[in-house]
C-alpha cells in the first residue's frame, strides 16, 4: 500500500506573533517553524499502517526552501521518500489554488491512500484535504481517529460532535483527514536521523499561479476583547490572595 502524507509547515506554537507592516499577514522574519500538529498525527498513522500492512510512506510539503527541514524530520521518523513542492508564493494562492498544487503532485504518485491533518494550526481553514479529494475525484472522510485496512478499502473511525463516533467504509484510493490524539507521536531516533540522509527528496516546481483568488485576506489584527477582564497583579501569593477575595465576594464559590 502506498500512502502519501501531505504536511504543512507552520509557526511554532509558542512563537511570539506580531502583525506584519502591511497588516495582511504576520511578521515572518524571526519565526521558527515546525510541522503542523494534526499533520504529525497523519504521518504517525501512515507509519503505523505501513508497519501493519507493508508498503511505502511518501511525505510531501509545499512551500519555500525552509519546509525541507520538516520533510527531513518526517524522513527521520520513518517516511521512505519526500517530495518538496517548491513555491514561494503560497500567500498569493487561495486554498483552492494550494489544494490544486498538492493534488497535482499527488496525481503523479497515484497513491492508494492520502492522509493529512484535519486543519492547520496557522490558517485553520480545515479544508485542504477535502478539496484535494474533490479535485482528485476520490472519496474522503474527515476528522478520523483510526484507520483499518480492509479488503479493497478502509474502515475508519470518524469523530462526531459531543463524544460521538461513527465508522465509515470506503474503497481505495481515498483521502482521510486525521484528528490529533488518535495515536501516539513517535520521536525520530538517532538511527532514523542518520538514515534520513540517504533517503530521496524530490523537488518539483508548483505550477504558476492560475486563477485569481476567490477569497482574499484583507487584514490581520489582535482580537477585540469580548469581556472586560480585570487583571490581578503582584507576587504569586498576592495574586492568589486577590483572586480568593474575588471568589468569595464576587463569584461566591467559597
Amino acid at each position, binding site marked *: 500500500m502506498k500512502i502519501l502524507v501531505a504536511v504543512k509547515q507552520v509557526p511554532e506554537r509558542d512563537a511570539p*506573533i506580531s502583525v506584519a507592516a502591511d497588516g495582511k499577514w504576520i511578521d515572518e522574519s524571526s519565526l521558527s517553524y515546525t510541522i503542523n500538529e494534526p499533520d504529525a498525527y497523519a504521518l504517525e498513522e501512515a507509519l503505523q499502517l505501513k508497519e501493519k500492512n507493508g508498503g511505502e510512506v511518501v511525505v510531501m510539503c509545499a512551500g519555500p526552501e525552509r519546509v525541507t527541514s520538516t520533510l527531513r524530520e518526517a524522513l527521520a521518523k520513518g517516511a521512505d521518500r519526500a517530495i518538496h513542492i517548491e513555491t514561494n508564493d503560497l500567500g498569493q494562492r487561495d486554498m483552492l489554488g494550494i489544494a490544486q498544487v498538492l493534488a497535482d503532485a499527488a496525481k503523479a504518485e497515484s497513491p492508494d491512500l492520502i492522509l493529512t491533518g484535519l486543519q492547520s494550526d496557522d490558517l485553520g481553514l*480545515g479544508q485542504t484535504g477535502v478539496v484535494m479529494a474533490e479535485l482528485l475525484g476520490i472519496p474522503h472522510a474527515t476528522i478520523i481517529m483510526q484507520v483499518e485496512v480492509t479488503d479493497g478499502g478502509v474502515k475508519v473511525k470518524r469523530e462526531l460532535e*459531543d*463524544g460521538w463516533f461513527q*465508522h*465509515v*467504509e470506503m474503497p481505495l484510493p481515498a483521502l482521510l483527514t486525521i484528528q490529533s*490524539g488518535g495515536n501516539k507521536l513517535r520521536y525520530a531516533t538517532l538511527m532514523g536521523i542518520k538514515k534520513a540522509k540517504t533517503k530521496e527528496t524530490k523537488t518539483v516546481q508548483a505550477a504558476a499561479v492560475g486563477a485569481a483568488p476567490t477569497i482574499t*485576506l484583507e487584514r490581520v489584527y489582535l482580537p477585540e476583547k469580548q469581556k472586560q477582564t480585570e487583571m490581578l497583579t503582584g507576587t504569586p501569593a498576592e495574586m492568589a490572595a486577590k*483572586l480568593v477575595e474575588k471568589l468569595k465576594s464576587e463569584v461566591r464559590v467559597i
Partner: protein
Amino acid sequence: MSGVLVLMEQRGGAWNRMSFEALAAGQQLAAKLGLECSAAVAGDGVDALVKELAGKKLTKVFVIQHTLLKNYTPDGYVAALEQLVKKAAPAYVLLPHTYQVRDFAPALATRFRQVLISDVVAIHDGPVFVRQLLQGKLNADYKQAGAGPCFVSIQAGTFRAEDVEVGTAPVEDFAPQIDAVQIRSKPGEPFREAAQTVDLSAAPVIVSVGRGIGEQENIALVQELASALGAELAASRPICDNGWLPMERQVGSSGQTVSPKLYLAVGISGAIQHLVGMKGSKTVVAINKDENAPIFEVADYGIVGDLFEVVPELTKAVRAAKGQ
C-alpha cells in the same frame, strides 16, 4: 445571482441547533444587503422540521428529500446541494460550522470553483467575514473576490438562535438526481465509547488544565486546586489527546459543553474549539504565562504568571479561606 441561502443541518429528524444560529446570521446578512433569505433542509422524512422552518421569516424553504440522503454521506450531500445551489443561484450560502459541514462544504464550494470561508466568528459591513488565525491569537478579515456564490460557515455562539425572525415561508420540494453508485462511502450508525461517568455540564465549579501544564505528573498540582475548591477537574483537548486525563473530562467542541458558575482555566491558551465549550460560564478566570493568550478575551479575571508559582499559592489561599 441573488439572495442568501442557509443550509440547515439535521440528523435522524432532529436539528443540529447550530443551524438556527446560521439562520439568524443569514437573515441578518440578507437584511443588511437588502437581499432575500431562504433556507434548505436535506434528508428523508423531515416533514416536522420543514413545518418548523416554514414558520420563520424566509422567502422560501427548500426541502431536499431523497432516500439516499437518509444517512449523511459527503457524496450524497455534495451532489444534492450542488443541484440546489445551481437552481436557487444564491449570492451567499451560509452553513453552521459543524463536523458534518466541515466534511462536505469544502467540496461543495469546489464544485463552484469557490473557497468556503470557514469558521466565521463575526460578519461586518462589506460584507467582511472575520475568522481566527493561529489558534485564536489573531483575527483576520476575509472578503469574497470571485464571482461567487460565496460559501460561509458560522462558528457556534457567533449568532443567537433566539434572534431568528418568525414569519411564514412557502415550502418548495426539490428532487435532486442522485444515483446510488455516486455514493462511494458507507456510513455506520453513530456510537459512543464507554458510558460517560463524568457529567461536567452539571458541575458548578470547574478547574480546567491545558497544554501549559507541560508534563503529566504536574496535573496533580491542578487536581489539588480543584479539590480545594470542591471543583470538577477538566481539560482542553491536547491533555486528553496525550492520555493525561480521560477524554470524558475534555471541554470543547469535541468534548463537553459546560456553563458553571466558575470556570478556572489553567495554562489553557483558548483556541476557538475550547472556547465554544466554556464561554457560557458565568465567571471565567484565566491563569496563563502569555498575556496575549486568547483565553483572556473571555476572562473576567486574569492572572499573567507562571502557573507553577501561582497555582500552589492559590491552593494554599483557598484552603486558608475555607479553613481547611
